[in-house]
């Protein structure tokens, strides 16, 4: 009987992946999310989860409350209007050059129009987009490095493999910002955008809400959107906060970017890299100032930056910094929670019915070693 229960438990645990898999078969390959009025809010590859959050192009926050993965539909409710942070640029040393490390978890992702296929295992078109973004960032006052390590196949292990690349970049480059460059898999009109009279692909920022860096990354994403909204409205189409990690637990300034979809004309995705590079450069406070605007681009209204001679002055505490602190505090909270749970668990195993006082003292002796009898096995080993 007891053995049966244990094997049942094992089968149930093994069955979790089966249940997860079965729940995720979609008819269209993407999910359409509707608001309370039935209007389409967004479309996103795969499926969404209840509890996911979304900041729309017009800065309204929604939360997914219903999701039918099989049908490829979900419903979201309006939560609040989001007030994007004023992009307060941290006061930096005079020669501040932010370092940005880029990699692509799904190196096979490609654009049908431009690459001829939506997936090229040897190295997809997304690497070209990441390469172009790297080049543009380098020309915008940042120091950008792209790691082109191939993480094929495009399966559940891809993020596990790209985790090694991300850690390697962190270890060797100490980046200010870590970017994982992707493209989505939805109809192309989802990302179509017109800027200065030319059509290009807008960019979606995806954040994992399953890690302690979520608040800091969300704040950074909102700051990037604030800068983009002022310079190039619509370039950052939205911010999706999905269930998952995306290796964003590794560092607080870590984002996933979606450059269009597989149906997007690759040239449109290429065009958006220059605009985004400039937005990132301004957001991170690269060595530019409102007094030295990029040719053809207006200074950012509302964005304050310390004059060059004063950049070594202490930085004013920013909202983002506060969120990083909150992220760290959350991490410590999780740690304390694990310790508390472990303590309670251990206590539960040691404390027996009937003589709790004696057992508690026994536990205390075990924990501290004070008054405990020597363990003959351990002595023998020594």
């Amino acid at each position, binding site marked *: 009987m007891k053995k049966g229960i244990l094997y049942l438990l094992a089968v149930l645990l093994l069955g979790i992946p089966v249940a997860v898999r079965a729940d995720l078969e979609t008819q269209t390959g993407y999910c359409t999310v509707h608001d309370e009025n039935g209007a389409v809010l967004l479309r996103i590859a795969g499926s*969404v989860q209840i509890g996911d959050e979304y900041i729309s192009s017009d800065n309204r926050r929604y939360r997914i409350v219903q999701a039918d993965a099989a049908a490829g539909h979900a419903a979201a409710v309006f939560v609040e209007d989001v007030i994007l942070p004023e992009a307060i640029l941290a006061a930096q040393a005079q020669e501040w050059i932010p370092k940005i490390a880029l990699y692509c978890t799904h190196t096979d992702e490609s654009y049908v129009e431009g690459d001829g296929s939506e997936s090229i295992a040897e190295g997809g078109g997304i690497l070209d987009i990441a390469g172009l973004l790297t080049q543009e960032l380098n020309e915008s006052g940042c120091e950008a490095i792209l790691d082109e390590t191939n993480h*094929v196949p*495009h399966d*559940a*292990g891809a*993020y596990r*493999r790209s985790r090694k690349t991300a850690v390697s970049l962190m270890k060797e480059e100490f980046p200010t910002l870590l970017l994982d460059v992707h493209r989505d898999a939805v109809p192309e009109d989802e990302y179509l955008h017109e800027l200065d009279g030319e059509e290009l692909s807008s960019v979606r920022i995806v954040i994992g809400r*399953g890690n302690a860096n979520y608040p800091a990354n969300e704040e950074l994403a909102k700051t990037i959107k604030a800068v983009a909204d002022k310079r190039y409205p619509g370039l950052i189409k939205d911010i999706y906060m999905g269930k998952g990690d995306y290796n964003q637990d590794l560092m607080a300034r870590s984002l996933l970017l979606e450059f269009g979809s597989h149906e997007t004309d690759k040239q449109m995705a290429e065009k958006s890299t220059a605009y985004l590079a400039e937005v990132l450069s301004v957001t991170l406070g690269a060595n530019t100032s409102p007094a030295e605007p990029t040719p053809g681009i207006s200074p950012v209204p509302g964005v304050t930056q310390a004059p060059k001679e004063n950049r070594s002055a202490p930085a004013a505490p920013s909202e983002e910094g506060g969120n990083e602190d909150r992220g760290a505090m959350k991490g410590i909270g999780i740690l304390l929670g694990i310790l508390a749970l472990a303590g309670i668990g251990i206590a539960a195993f040691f404390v027996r019915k009937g003589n709790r006082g004696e057992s508690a003292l026994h536990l205390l002796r075990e924990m501290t070693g004070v008054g405990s009898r020597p363990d003959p096995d351990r002595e023998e080993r020594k």
Partner: protein
Amino acid sequence: MSLSITLLTALGFLVVFGALQRVLDRMGLTDRQALFFVAAMIAGTFLPDIALGEAVTVNIGGALIPFGLCVYLFIRAGTAWERVRTILAALLGAALVFALGRWLPSEPEHQWFSDLWIYGIAAGLAAFLLGRSRRAAFVAGFMGVLLGDLLQGVISRLQGYEVTIALGGAGILDAGLIAAISAVTLTELIGEIREKMSGARHEGQHYHNGHFQRQEEKS
């Protein structure tokens, strides 16, 4: 704070406070040895990877030191049968890690919880079903991910893709270490539940290596 750092810090605290004494005893490790390995893995993470040709790199903290620990645990196994079961558990763990990687949805948002945990649970189950010891759980958890990565890398290379097989490449942040820790935790949890259910502790027995032993029989 990343998942692995949280886990390792919690582990360090639990070792220091003696709370893992019983688990470590059953793994044949002392507190000092456990702390040494934790510290070595953290330090080794920040050392440069060792390149084995063009295709393979080995991280010292994420692969070499945990592999050394696995070898140590394997040698310390009580019986030849336990060693056989440990090898089988590691192979089953690797097969599960490989199969889950292929079969589960590719996007993390589609999974109920982080894929880093899924591999640990799979390897922990392999260890429980075949190894039934904490030693086997650690070896199966770690080697499962390591061999699973190796298998996938070899297949990709054979298919002609120029991939780098980065063994333990993320160091202490790698899935292998998370899998090993969660596998031991799972085995301990199942062992304790089974022990509690049987009431063996009231009779001076405990669950070890897949069956109940009297305290003095502990290896």
